């Protein structure tokens, strides 16, 4: 292409958070239509086929219960969300630190990474009853935080390490020409290169954190936790309440995911694909 007149090939991205959200809404309109359609189908099938309530309640009755019990559900959800958030922060933070160490001392990574990958294949949820015992007998928040943290650890570790080590050779050659030290190479090249990878890991971790906390509660937790609420209501056949609880879990999990995705959008505005 000609560069005779210096004309930018693409415009500078502009517009703040508001405009970004506005554009998102338009993007999500088709998905929203599908959602409404599916819920309507769900409702319709139950009414037409006379599905028993314990098999699947009507969306409208779930919504009604959700509304009448909103205070209790909200508090229970918030309680569990705190556990999930704690585990997310702890597990992801530690994972990023470990990844930095492993990327800096590569032989260490070669020695340890196979075990990390193998450990990742272990269904950590299976340890939930045991960790509940480790951390104060299961009624505490810390046992759920631990499960959530362990669940978050591996995807963030693997993604971060991948990002830190997928620097282009020519980027490093340029740094070498400036006689840059290791710290400077990490700060100026490796970490910026890794950021998109780290966010990909974090987004996976948000969902896992919520799952870890709720499943941990299934094996015993505080009475005002959403996992305990879902379990106890379904035991006494209060399926509307149990489903409303699941809905709350979904909403909190989604909120955490969206929060991380928004931070990603703001932090990575320089990535061509996120700015378009």
């Amino acid at each position, binding site marked *: *292409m000609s560069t005779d007149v210096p004309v930018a090939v693409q415009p*500078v991205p502009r517009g703040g958070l508001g405009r970004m959200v506005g554009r998102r809404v338009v993007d999500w309109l088709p998905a929203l239509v599908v959602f409404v359609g599916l819920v309507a189908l769900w409702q319709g099938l139950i009414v037409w086929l006379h599905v028993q309530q314990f098999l699947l309640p009507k969306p409208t009755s779930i919504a009604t219960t959700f509304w009448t019990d909103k205070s209790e559900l909200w508090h229970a959800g918030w309680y569990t969300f705190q556990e999930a958030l704690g585990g997310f922060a702890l597990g992801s933070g530690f994972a990023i630190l470990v990844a930095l160490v492993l990327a800096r001392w590569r032989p260490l990574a070669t020695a340890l990474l196979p075990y990390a990958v193998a450990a990742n294949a272990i269904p950590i949820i299976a340890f939930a009853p045991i960790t509940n015992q480790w951390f104060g007998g299961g009624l505490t928040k810390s046992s759920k935080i631990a499960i959530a943290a362990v669940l978050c650890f591996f995807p963030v570790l693997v993604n971060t390490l991948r990002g830190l080590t997928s620097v*282009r050779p020519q980027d490093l050659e340029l740094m070498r*020409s400036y006689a840059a030290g290791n710290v400077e190479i990490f700060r100026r090249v490796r970490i910026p290169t890794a950021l998109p990878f780290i966010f990909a890991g974090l987004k996976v971790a948000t969902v896992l954190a919520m799952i870890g906390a709720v499943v941990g509660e299934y094996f015993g937790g505080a009475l005002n936790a959403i996992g305990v609420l879902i379990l106890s209501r379904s035991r006494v056949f209060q399926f509307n309440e149990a489903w409303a609880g699941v809905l709350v879990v979904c909403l909190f999990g989604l909120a955490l995911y969206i929060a991380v995705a928004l931070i990603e959008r703001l932090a990575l505005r*320089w990535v061509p694909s996120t700015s378009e």
Partner: protein
Amino acid sequence: MSVVEISRVSKQFGQTTALQGIDLEIGEREFVSLIGPSGCGKSTLLRIIGDLIEPSSGTVVVNGKSARQARNDRDYGIVFQDPVLYDWRTVAKNVALPLEMARWSRQKRNERVRRMLELVELQGFENHRPWQLSGGMQQRVSIARALSFDPALLLMDEPFGALDEMTRERLNIELLKIWEASGSTIVFVTHSITEAVFLSTRVVVMSPRPGQISELIPVDLPQPRTAATREAPSFFELVTHVREALHLGHDLDRAAPVTQEAKA
């Protein structure tokens, strides 16, 4: 004083001899092109001058000190075939990168970046991202970055190799202006005979297997060079001279048939 002194430099990559017995001296304010077919070691030689690759034997002196010391002192700027700009930095911040690393004050940095972008005619693009620019503009940012800290020596590894002919010719003229203005010494690796003759004060013709210097050709075309230079009879004579030197270097190697790449 010469800026680069290379004596008896050889480089082995495993069984392959990439460079053998290279002697070359480059004086202040020279514009020296290294030209030769693929595999003649011209890029390797450039990287040895920049201490990005260590020679297997021989010595390299840059600015009167070892190549290692010169790199540590940031005595040279380098431009690669790929612009190597960091997407997470704006154009201005990419140019400022070496200045940040040399701990210049913000005010000095901004002032210098402004001047460098003026030099490569990219005013107004300070806040663009590299991927928003065309290939030629990206390479100009890369040149601005390499020159931003006033290095005595500029190493360029096929900087215009990925650009179309028109852009390349225009950037050649711009580069000569920058060379004039900055007073630096340039070592320039290229595949293009016309580019080498047009830009250089001296052309170093190299031949492959093992990589060595087959001829040094002084280019005495008048300065400053313009579009008219390309049409002068003396320009064609020099181009022919370089082309013949390239073919001679190739013919010495009986194992390899003469290929198109030597003419490219």
